């Protein structure tokens, strides 16, 4: 393989890992609600969200392992990489906060992730396209669920509105990262293998602005925080704690079957 083909393959691996990490980390966060949700019906709903996301993570990790070609398993990729090797967006690793913040996080991310996944369905990489196609239906539900609850909480009571606004302020600075093109991915954009992140921005902005207006929530004035972000392995302090817990057994008892 030429150097260029090698670089492109490496970029694709990182890209797929990024989608897998996004799904796993958000699924892990949502799963923290089990047994602690505001209503039993929401325990069930959170289980659904977590099941979808972790199931999708598994598919993407399996494909990443195949691209990598080192005989690793999906579990190896999920449980044996440290924080600076995780490629998830910083938005998804933010703590649950109250249920309002969880909903805001889910909505802001899903509006991006669904659009990204829909575009991936048209990828020239048939395997990647097939995985994305399997997820779109589930992600549509995630977007609908989170938008519904966004409205319900923001328009229901003053407290609900205040908390949704507060969640938005806490998270807004992490949304900019989703639309940053990654130089190493340029050949992938050009080949139609993966969508350009920047191409999703306008549609996302319009859709989010609509919901904010509908839900009587003010746009946040917060700017992107200065960080090289996920691509450089620069996260927030929250990811390390999440991983210490998630990876404990695989780290403490290496190389076993579970």
């Amino acid at each position, binding site marked *: 393989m030429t150097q260029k083909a090698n670089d492109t393959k490496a970029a694709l691996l990182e890209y797929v890992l990024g989608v897998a990490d996004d799904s*796993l980390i958000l699924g*892990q966060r949502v*799963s*923290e609600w*089990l*047994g*602690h*949700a*505001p*209503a*039993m*019906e*929401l*325990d*069930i709903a959170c*289980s*659904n969200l*977590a*099941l979808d996301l*972790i*199931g999708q*993570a*598994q598919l993407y*990790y399996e494909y990443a392992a195949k691209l990598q070609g080192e005989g690793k398993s*999906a*579990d190896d990729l*999920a*449980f044996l990489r440290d924080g600076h090797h995780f490629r998830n967006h910083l938005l998804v690793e933010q703590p649950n906060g*109250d*249920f*309002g913040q969880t909903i805001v996080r889910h909505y802001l991310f899903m509006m991006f992730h669904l659009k990204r996944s829909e575009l991936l369905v048209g990828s020239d990489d048939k395997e990647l396209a097939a995985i994305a196609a399997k997820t779109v239906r589930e992600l549509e539900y995630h977007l609908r669920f989170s938008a519904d609850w966004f*409205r*319900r*909480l923001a*328009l*229901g*009571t003053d*407290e*609900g509105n205040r*908390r949704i606004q507060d969640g938005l302020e806490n998270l807004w600075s992490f949304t900019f990262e989703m639309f940053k093109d990654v130089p190493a991915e340029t050949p992938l954009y050009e080949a139609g293998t993966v969508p350009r992140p920047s191409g999703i921005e306008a549609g996302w902005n319009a859709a989010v602005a609509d919901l904010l207006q509908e839900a009587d929530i003010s746009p946040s004035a917060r700017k992107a925080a200065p960080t090289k972000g996920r691509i450089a392995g620069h996260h927030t302090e929250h990811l390390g704690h*999440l991983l210490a*817990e*998630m990876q*404990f*057994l*695989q780290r403490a*008892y290496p190389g*076993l*079957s*579970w």
Partner: protein
Amino acid sequence: TEDDAAFQERIDDDQFIEPKDYMPEAYRKTLIRQIAQHAHSEIVGMLPEGNWVTRAPSLRRKLILIAKIQDEAGHGLYLYSAAETLGVARDDLVQELHEGKAKYSTIFNYPSLNWADIGAIGWLVDGAAITNQIPLCRTSYGPYARAMVRVCKEESFHQRQGYELMMAMAKGSEAQKEMAQDALNRWWWPSLMMFGPPDAESTHTAQSMAWKIKRFTNDELRQRFIDATIPQAEALGLTVPDPDLKWNEERGHYDYGEIDWDEFWAVVRGEGICARDRIRDRVNAYEDGAWVREAAEAYAAKQNQKAAVA
């Protein structure tokens, strides 16, 4: 009364009693108590398992565990619904749980301490629950019986998954096997206690049997569970922590050692090691979530109003 006689006749005839049918007040109260206790157990039971969701050691195991907990939340909801057909409100039942006035299965006041506990809970706790519940699929109150059919089906599935997890641990590394044995050591006796006090001390059994709410005594069900479980433990290569356990050819059953009923009653009284944590976790979830439920209700009311005006 005449009604009571007719009611008992229907029971004796193995007919289901339905919500609108006549029933004696004591029957209704017994059912509410039992169904609520069962519903609370499903909900509190999410906690010892939830304790390991974020640490499950593989994606597959994490998915299985989340799905199991989801089923439990679902069981809780069916069962609260079944109780509501008897004229109580779920919120009131939940309130009693939070105030420590309602009981739930003593088993959930034991901690889940290592990953094999997730297997042991599925294998033993769900196993004991199913043994208790299969006869409840024919219990005399219709809505309860029908809820039980669905619950039992899902729990059989959980039980097999739990056993499969135990097998992976018991046949794994030395460390895994040690965890599996440790889990069995800790969950064995509390599982036997799930069937309730011995028949001689069980206050409700006779009346519940007459009403066909119960169809077997505590000791009968306990024996059935032990007989089914010992060969499974042997297949795992694990040691059941009961030196008195042995097959009794004559009885055609396993004999087993003395259960520590002092411990059972202590846990019933709320002295279980996790009792305070469990109730606090549920109360916190409920109180922290109050604004969410209020906002959702207010929103629904506004939508209804809009629809009415339009």
